[in-house]
């Protein structure tokens, strides 16, 4: 009796193990494994959490709807701490995990480093929200679902110079890939919109005390301030500017796009404008359903990082479906052929470089939430480079 129970147990255990590892014939279809890296620890862990939740939400929804090619998707997640020197070993580990494609839910430095590894391995790779220009230039297997920094910077110039009609502008630039490429785009087009850049200040990513910059901005007396940063720098910066008596319009970008920014800056956040990818007041069904589903899963409002990573997974799944298989070249070609695929950040079409064109969503903080302020839909000004 005891022996028989043991044998049954063993058999059962084996069956469960087989199902778990996805050995064909064991019942469930073998999962399609997607590599995913994001900063789950370290200074960028906040964005890493949003990215991971966004990616997981997309996978859950796709699997609930029957998966891709009749097989479930499985996310293989690693922490890269947003550091290039971590991203390379992470990318190599992912390559050893039997993945068919990979997604970056990380910042520019880590994504550039990992892109080189995936390109060399012929592994399709989608950068969700890292904005450095060189990422897609790594090669033809690399795609991006975000607007490049320069493009967003140009949008910022149009917002301030044309839509708001403000001409005296101070730049406060975060001294990294993100801030510098935004400032480059802004300066490139500032003249076209009649903007005079009174002065530019830079700060490091660890900075939280902006007393000296606040004093200088007061002296400059600009009409508007174009300040790059992430929520953890922008929150203190905006509160200190307002507490120091600066009343000029403050324009930020995607880096501000998190409820945390509003939680930090509170009343000082009111009226701050940002250029971003997610329109909270959109009436498109794919945007509405994402915003609702994300808040339900995460327990906090959707942000740009979550929306972009969610989109990257969907775009990739859509491509695998159309490729009819998981072979690298076929998936890459299908990705490159993505046309007008509706997503939470708008319809996605890749150009020859693997970049997308999308209108810039200008959101304003009103009563503690991001709301729609304007949409900049200017295919000439916002055209991504094609080579």
């Amino acid at each position, binding site marked *: 009796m005891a022996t028989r129970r043991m044998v049954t147990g063993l058999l059962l255990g084996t069956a469960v193990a087989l199902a778990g590892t996805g050995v064909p014939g064991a019942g469930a279809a073998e999962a399609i494994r997607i590599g995913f890296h994001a900063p789950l*620890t370290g*200074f960028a*862990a*906040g964005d*890493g*959490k949003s990215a991971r939740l966004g990616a997981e939400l997309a996978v859950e929804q796709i699997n609930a709807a029957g998966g891709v090619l009749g097989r479930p998707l499985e996310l293989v997640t690693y922490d890269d701490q947003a550091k290039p020197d971590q991203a390379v070993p992470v990318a190599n580990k992912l390559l050893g995990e039997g993945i068919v494609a990979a997604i970056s839910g990380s910042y520019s430095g880590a994504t550039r480093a990992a892109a080189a590894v995936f390109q060399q391995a012929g592994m399709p790779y989608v950068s969700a929200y890292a904005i450095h220009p060189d990422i897609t230039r790594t090669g033809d297997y690399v795609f991006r679902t975000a607007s490049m920094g320069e493009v967003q910077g140009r949008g910022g110039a149009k917002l301030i110079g044309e839509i708001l009609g403000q001409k005296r502008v101070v730049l406060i630039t975060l*001294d990294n890939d993100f801030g510098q490429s935004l400032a480059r785009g802004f300066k490139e087009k500032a003249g076209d919109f009649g903007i005079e850049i009174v002065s530019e*200040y*830079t*700060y*490091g990513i*660890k*900075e*939280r*005390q902006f*007393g*000296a*910059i*606040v*004093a*200088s901005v*007061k*002296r400059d007396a600009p009409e508007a301030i174009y300040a790059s940063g992430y929520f*953890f720098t922008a*929150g*203190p910066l905006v*509160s*200190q500017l307002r*507490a*120091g*008596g600066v009343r000029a319009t403050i324009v930020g970008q995607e880096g501000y796009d998190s409820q*945390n920014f509003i*939680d*930090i*800056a*509170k*009343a000082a956040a009111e009226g701050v404008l940002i250029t971003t990818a997610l329109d909270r007041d959109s009436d498109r069904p794919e945007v509405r359903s994402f915003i609702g589903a994300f808040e339900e899963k995460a327990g906090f409002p959707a942000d740009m990082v979550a929306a972009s990573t969610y989109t990257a997974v969907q775009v990739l799944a859509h491509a695998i479906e159309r490729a009819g298989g998981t072979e690298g070249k076929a998936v890459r070609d299908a990705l490159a052929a993505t046309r007008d695929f509706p997503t939470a950040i708008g319809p996605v079409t890749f150009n020859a470089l693997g970049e997308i064109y999308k209108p810039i969503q200008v959101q304003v903080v009103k009563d503690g939430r991001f709301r729609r302020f304007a949409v900049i839909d200017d295919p000439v000004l916002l055209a991504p480079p094609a080579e």
Partner: protein
Amino acid sequence: MFYVELLIAGLVQGAMYAMMALGLTLIYGLLRILHIAHAAFFTLGGYVGVLAANSGLPLGAAAALGVLVAATAGPLVYGTVYRPLLDKPPYVALIASIGLLIAMEDGFRLLFGPYGLSFAENPWFVTGPDLGGIFLNWVQIALGLSAVLAIAGLGLFAVGSRAGVAWRATVDDPEMAMSFGVSPERVRLLAFALASALAGLAGFLVGLLNNLIEPGMGNITSYKGLAIVVLGGLGNVPGTLWASLLLGVAESFGTIYLDKILDRDAIAFFILVAVLMWRPQGLARGR
């Protein structure tokens, strides 16, 4: 006016550095340990304060609680981590200290999440006295006052009280002090309690100023604190004070006039290298 504002911004920053660096220099003076993990007590004060304030305690009480918890945790860490290492070479304690900082930082991250915490209400930050165009809020004033009070208090304590005399005796010659009935152990515990209390208060006030308490918020301050301690002449309290204020003001002006050449955080270390090359005993006169 602009230069006055830059100067004030620098002095406020310097006051914060002073509160951190004083603790570091006290501990170095007593134990010859570079207490890198000091940063974690700065963060601890911030977290305890923000949690207390957001659970409904008035800000003053939240500050006191943050200081109290930090002041208790400091001696505890000394007893468990440093005491067993006192007869080892100094780098052993240094490595333990770095490990402790990393562990505490990731502990905060695990406990309180990666996003950091903000004060639900931050009245001291959004109000302040009217000084004719210069905006100063109560948090900045509190930082400056705390630094002044802490330093004056320490000075009085060291000169005028029995415990202070015991302290100075222990710094000068622990064995001789012991033979006169001073317990070096009690002096060390007291040093850790005081140093951690100052760090906790600084962390709480900086948390108000940024309205953001993050797991790694103490790191830069702590590394700069080390630079300041060296600038001031290791173990030299008045020297540390001057070096803190000097660095705060240098950074304030440097952020505006040197930002194309030197990152703000590089200024401290640039001065450090220069001083080590030309005045290795520190800026102040040697003890």
